[in-house]
């Protein structure tokens, strides 16, 4: 008898040793007593499994129809699933492990089977219990030998073959008790199959999706991968998993992409390099230095603010916060420094006393510009010298802009056309628009606008004005400016429709020039805001 026990314990430690060498530490954990432990079976489906959250018996019928439509094309099947389940389906690859908790009795394997209990969040309890019974049988059938590795193998095979799924391997439906309990009582469907009915189906659904995501990242990070952009190879930890499209991109390439586009002001082109899906701001923040991130945010804020008409900036140079105008009131209240000012002259609020800057600003500017010295001094005393000079500059710039530039219909950014056709693309927000009527155009077919007879002004006028532009290019810009107003701006280069100027410098330069222009237009306040003092 003693001899028998010795052999059993020898066999047991031998078996545990074998398991330890065959399975990874993640898959096999041994307890300190050397008699028990846990084996985790991880299941992966390379071609993916559709996880479906089924919340009613009616949806169950949809699901059955989908499963049975095996001869439909992939696109057709994807469409069916999308129509019936929307966000309640997700393709996953990895499922959480099935845990095999075992303890070995003294007389295992010769006289007693191992004690095995199975747990899994995605296999019905009933099925697990049946399996436990079956595993005891397996021990008998195998001639009462050590069977732990066989158990591992059996469950792995069955799981990857979809043996635990009520439907073919392509689908794992998740049901909820609460929602279909009453219907289920009258239906035989749920009793006859191994459906996974759990109290909190939605929670399970999301935790399965989350597990799949985490596991994909962990496995990716354990290996070395080549980057499709820079062609270098890096450990998986040097890649970032994009939030929106879930592609992996090497961190350095992601950084350079973001830095370049932010530098150019082309933030609307911050997209995944593989699929052109927009980048999540969170990924951008992770990828770039603080300075570039700030610039990115500034661009986003600027375009949001410039889309709003009712914004003025606090005139205090050290504050410069955006202030929202209140209805028809001429008083602006700065939320930052609590300064209350007149939105026209930017001085302290002067109640109902008339404001010289309200109304015809142009007249005031011209009056000041044309006035003789004494009158000027007089005017400066009344309305402030710097303000008057700013006003003259502003009016000049506004004049120039109204003559030469048009505002993007989406973001209001001033855009100048230098040549080419009348389909323009805003330098700032990237949206296409018609130069003639300033209509927003659709990204898919921007030229359709010029072929629709309903657009009287623009029909067949895509290229209207091209001759003039061409002349401008040849002799307009380089010649001395006849117009004095253009002194500050004679180097301005504008944009030629949507054309791919191959010269890369152009875009950047023009961006800077447009920024200068914008600063002139919105005056000193904007200048201070962009280049904070100190």
């Amino acid at each position, binding site marked *: 008898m003693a001899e028998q026990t010795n052999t059993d314990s020898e066999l047991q430690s031998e078996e545990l040793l074998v398991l330890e060498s065959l399975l990874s530490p993640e898959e096999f954990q041994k307890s300190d007593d050397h008699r028990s432990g846990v084996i985790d079976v991880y299941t992966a489906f390379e071609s993916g499994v559709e996880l479906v959250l089924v919340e009613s018996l009616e949806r169950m019928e949809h699901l059955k129809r989908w499963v049975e439509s095996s001869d439909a094309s992939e696109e057709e099947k994807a469409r069916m699933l999308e129509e019936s389940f929307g966000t309640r389906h997700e393709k996953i690859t990895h499922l959480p492990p099935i845990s095999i908790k075992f303890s070995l009795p003294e007389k295992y394997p010769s006289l007693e089977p191992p004690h095995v209990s199975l747990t899994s969040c995605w296999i019905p309890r009933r099925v697990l219990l049946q399996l436990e019974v079956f595993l005891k049988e397996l021990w008998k059938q195998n001639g009462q030998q050590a069977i732990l590795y066989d158990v591992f193998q059996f469950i792995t095979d069955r799981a990857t073959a979809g043996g635990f799924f009520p439907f073919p391997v392509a689908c794992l439906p998740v049901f909820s008790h609460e929602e279909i309990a009453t219907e289920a009582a009258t239906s035989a469907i749920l009793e006859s199959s191994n459906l996974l009915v759990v109290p909190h189906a939605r929670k399970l659904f999301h935790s399965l999706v989350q597990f799949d995501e985490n596991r994909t990242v962990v496995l990716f990070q354990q290996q070395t991968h080549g980057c*499709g*952009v*820079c*062609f*270098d190879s*890096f450990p998986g930890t*040097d890649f970032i998993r994009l939030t929106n499209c879930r592609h992996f991109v090497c*961190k*350095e*390439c992601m*950084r*350079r*992409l973001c830095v*370049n586009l932010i530098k150019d002001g082309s933030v609307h082109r911050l*997209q995944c*390099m*593989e699929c*052109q899906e927009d980048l999540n701001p969170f990924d951008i923040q992770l990828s770039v230095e603080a300075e570039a991130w700030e610039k990115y945010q500034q661009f986003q804020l600027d375009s949001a603010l410039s889309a709003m008409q009712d914004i003025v900036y606090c005139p205090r140079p050290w504050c410069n916060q955006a202030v929202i105008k209140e209805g028809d009131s001429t008083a602006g209240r700065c939320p930052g420094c609590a300064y209350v000012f007149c939105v026209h002259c930017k001085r302290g609020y002067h109640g109902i006393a008339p404001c010289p800057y309200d109304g015809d600003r142009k007249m005031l500017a011209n009056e000041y510009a044309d006035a003789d010295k004494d009158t000027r001094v007089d005017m400066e005393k009344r309305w402030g010298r710097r303000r008057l000079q700013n006003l003259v500059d502003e009016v000049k710039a506004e004049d120039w802009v109204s003559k030469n530039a048009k505002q993007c219909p989406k973001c209001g950014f001033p855009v100048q056309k230098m040549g*080419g*056709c009348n*389909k323009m*693309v805003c330098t700032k927000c990237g949206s296409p628009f018609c130069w003639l009527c300033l209509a927003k155009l659709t990204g898919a077919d921007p*030229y359709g606008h*010029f072929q629709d007879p309903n657009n009287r002004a623009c029909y067949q006028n*895509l*290229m209207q004005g*091209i*001759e003039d532009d*061409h002349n401008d290019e040849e002799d307009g810009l380089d010649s001395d400016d006849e117009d004095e107003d253009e002194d500050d701006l004679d180097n301005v280069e504008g944009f*030629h*429709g*949507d*054309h*791919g*100027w*191959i*010269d*890369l410098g152009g*875009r950047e330069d023009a961006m800077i020039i447009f920024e200068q222009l914008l600063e002139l237009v919105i005056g000193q306040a904007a200048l201070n805001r962009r280049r904070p003092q100190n």
Partner: protein
Amino acid sequence: MSSPSAGKRRLDTDVIKLIESKLEVNILGGLNHFSVKFHGPKDTPYEDGVWRIRVLLPDDYPFKSPSIGFMNRIFHPNIDECSGTVCLDVINQTWTPMYSLSNIFEIFLSQLLSYPNPSDPLNGDAAALYLQKPEDFKKKVREYVQRYATEEALRVQEQREAPTGMDEDDDDESSMSEFSEDEADGMDL
């Protein structure tokens, strides 16, 4: 991780791939500045034409698109006659780092010559002719090919550039301006 050579491997690989393909590549100033001999696609009026295309790869390649320009003259709605600038959205607006130089020469440019986009023209005359008198357009394209885009024409152009030797930028400028003066009368064919 951001070693000085980051991105270098990509640039080298792209250029080497280009050299290994059937295209003739002439280095003008290092691996980032060269010209590529490009043949007009078959079954188009550009067939039999041969152009030298200057390629300048920016430091931030492939995050910034390459600058490319035709060095000898071509009559095409989307290519500027004097500067050789190409209007092609995939080389600027919609450029992504996944594109490569091979894409440009093997797909994008051939496509552009086969299917001009007259609704977004850089050369208005060419666009108008292409739309209104397609036969005249083809004729004019062939005339240009005969005049400016033969092996002989390329040789003459190269010889003209040769004496200035190593100084690439001056070289290009002089050849460009010479070229414009020379062809000034040729423009009103």
